[in-house]
């Protein structure tokens, strides 16, 4: 339970606060339009439907403000940097930015639906009032025209068209109507192209369609410019309680002058202008970074079509576990793709390992393959670094690192950094022993990582500290041919799969055995467990950590850290 609070407490509080603000805005603006005196006559024509349209509009204003903020990555990095003093849970909250972005997007979609439905009702009832279907008061109110002495309440002024087509006519001849239709359409296209299936498989469709948000925000800002939501003005004083039943006498008796109405000042721009400017700055910063020179230090083609790029950029500073965005104009002017960095901060270059996984990566690999020896690669833009650093790894005496599949990539950075810190006896590093568990279906595409482990293994042997790092590779996708091969080469010193001294295991790890081993070898130590892999595994490890921890300070304690890379 305590673990849950530490891992999820801040998320809960954030969500409760956000929901609270939404509910408050909804109820407040609902009451303004449902109870306020200046909307008495409007309510006579429309009932509560206007309130039902304006309340979600307020929630929409707030959420459209919020939606741009989680994707301002540099802003988040800035906040993260200034929160260094505060607890890490607060900073890790910033890593959940995309999930928050999606939550806000769904809220916008829901509120748009309510808003549109309410306005459909409004338009229909306005139309009916104008046609004189309802009572005398409604007809009188609707007849108020926009002349020198009178101001209108009912935005439908036309009567000469077929009544069934008047609502459509209104929508397409008012600013609010046209912008409403356009931005709702943009929203729908953005949402359908952001479904997981489309995003994961056809990223370009998602990315380019998402830029419809520019039209969305432009339309949103001018949506209220027509001022068709009208409220009654105080002058001349027109008491509706007295005058509502005497509509035929308005203007002819002193107590009941003709009521005057005016549109409300559009407010959406006040909500969204700030984040729009912030986001614009983000994109400009990306442009500036794109223009900075990036040199290639080394280009390596690893087996299984994995490309390693070592790049040098002036003034670039990174931490372990962070990621960058890469852009290659030779492939696509507009696409930026994220990659976790595999170099350590102690190195004077940044490296990424790129696997062939789509159009962009395949083109990049084929361009690199055709380069002559020693030549510089195509122009590359680097934006970043982003993401919460994983420096917690260095705080524990004993660290258990578990990397599953592609999740092994950030550990390349971490292991290298630990190695550099150990060599330089960096006081930041408290780690004395590391257990690294590498789980993958097959070693295809990760031979480069095996090479990295091999180098480290060799260096440690030379220094006589062979037991600083213990690796275990678990091949979960083994079959009979693997088993046969292993049996035949059983006696060899190095492992047949990885070439490492430590042998490969087949199948999934027996976590009881592993935790038992760690506990036995490290009595009275505080062990940090870090995972980069599937959520199912996270649950398993969390449980094991709880199981094998002892309250007694003389015994081993396990802490599970949920990392998202």
């Amino acid at each position, binding site marked *: 339970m305590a673990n849950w609070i530490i891992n999820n407490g801040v998320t809960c509080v954030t969500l409760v606060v956000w929901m609270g603000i939404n509910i408050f805005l909804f109820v407040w603006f609902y009451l303004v339009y449902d109870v306020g005196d200046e909307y008495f006559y409007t309510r006579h024509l429309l009932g509560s439907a206007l309130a039902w349209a304006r309340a979600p509009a307020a929630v929409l204003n707030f959420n459209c403000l919020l939606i741009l903020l989680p994707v301002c990555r540099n802003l988040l990095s800035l906040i993260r940097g200034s929160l260094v003093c505060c607890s890490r849970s607060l900073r890790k909250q910033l890593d959940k930015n995309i999930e928050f972005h999606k939550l806000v997007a769904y809220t916008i979609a829901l509120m748009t639906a309510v808003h549109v439905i309410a306005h*459909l009702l409004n338009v*229909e009832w306005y139309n009916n009032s104008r046609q004189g279907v309802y009572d005398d008061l409604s007809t009188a109110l609707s007849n108020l025209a926009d002349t020198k002495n009178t101001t209108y309440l009912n935005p439908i002024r036309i009567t000469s068209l077929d009544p*069934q087509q008047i609502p459509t006519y209104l*929508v397409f001849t008012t600013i609010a109507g046209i912008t409403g239709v356009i931005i709702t359409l943009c929203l729908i296209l953005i*949402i359908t192209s952001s479904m997981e*299936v489309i995003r994961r498989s056809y990223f370009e469709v998602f990315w380019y369609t998402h830029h419809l948000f520019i039209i969305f925000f432009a339309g949103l800002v001018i949506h209220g410019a027509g001022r068709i939501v009208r409220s009654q003005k105080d002058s001349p004083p027109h008491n509706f309680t007295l005058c509502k039943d005497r509509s035929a006498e308005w203007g002819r008796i002193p107590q009941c002058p003709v009521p005057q109405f005016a549109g409300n000042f559009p407010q959406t721009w006040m909500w969204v202008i700030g984040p729009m400017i912030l986001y614009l700055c983000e994109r400009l910063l990306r442009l500036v970074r794109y223009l900075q020179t990036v040199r290639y230090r080394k280009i390596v083609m690893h087996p299984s079509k994995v490309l390693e790029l070592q790049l040098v950029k002036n003034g670039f500073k990174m931490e372990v576990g962070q990621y960058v965005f890469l852009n290659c104009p030779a492939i696509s002017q507009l696409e930026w793709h994220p990659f976790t960095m595999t170099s350590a901060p102690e190195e004077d270059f940044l490296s990424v390992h790129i696997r062939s996984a789509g159009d962009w990566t395949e083109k990049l690999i084929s361009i690199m393959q055709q380069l002559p020896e020693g030549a510089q690669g195509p122009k590359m833009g680097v934006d970043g670094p982003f993401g919460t650093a994983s420096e917690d790894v260095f705080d524990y005496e004993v660290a258990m690192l578990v990397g599953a599949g592609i999740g092994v990539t950030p550990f390349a950075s971490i292991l290298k950094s630990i190695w550099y810190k150990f060599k330089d006896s960096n006081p930041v590093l408290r780690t004395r022993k590391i257990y690294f568990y590498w789980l993958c279906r097959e070693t295809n595409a990760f031979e480069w990582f095996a090479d990295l482990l091999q180098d480290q293994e060799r260096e440690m042997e030379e220094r006589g500290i062979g037991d600083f790092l213990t690796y275990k590779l678990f091949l979960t996708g083994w079959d009979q041919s693997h088993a046969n091969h292993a049996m035949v080469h059983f006696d060899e010193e190095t492992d047949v799969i990885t070439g490492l001294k430590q042998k490969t295991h087949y199948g999934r790890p027996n976590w009881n055995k592993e935790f038992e081993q760690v506990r036995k070898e490290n009595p009275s130590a505080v062990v940090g467990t870090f995972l980069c892999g599937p959520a199912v595994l996270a649950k398993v490890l969390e449980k094991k950590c709880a199981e094998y921890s002892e309250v007694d300070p003389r015994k081993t304690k396990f802490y599970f850290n949920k990392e998202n890379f």
Partner: protein
Amino acid sequence: MGKIEWAMWANEQALAAGLILFTGGIVGVAGLFRGWQFAAYAVAAGLFVCLLEYPRSRRAKGTGVERKWQYGLTVCVKAFGPLTRNYYARAFLHAALCIPAGFILATVLGCVCLGIASLIYLSVSQILLQYFYILFSPCRKLVETVTRKRLFHY
């Protein structure tokens, strides 16, 4: 962008359009709007489009992910053979379905969305891809693909 299967997006868009058409129709009927008969049509058309588009097709390349509980619908839709399997047919079907919804305001959004889906399907049908059906047996062990004609024409 050559390898993108636009049909996957057309499918998502058509499903969303069906829902929007359905909702607009419900509002029109419930409020007894002028021309509510068009709204009633939209309810039926929206429901039909949703049922038609709910089964997600298998992808030409790569693994497909079916939607929850789509097995029953897949069987029904498959039964119509070339009418539902061919992208041209879908494009024209959606174009025809969306037109009557354009006559009243409540359903105009659904009309436009379905029209867009129809256009995407039309652009895909140039490649004459066939719609493959994901048919998972109730035990979920087998993936069965049903095609009568040849698979790809470029």
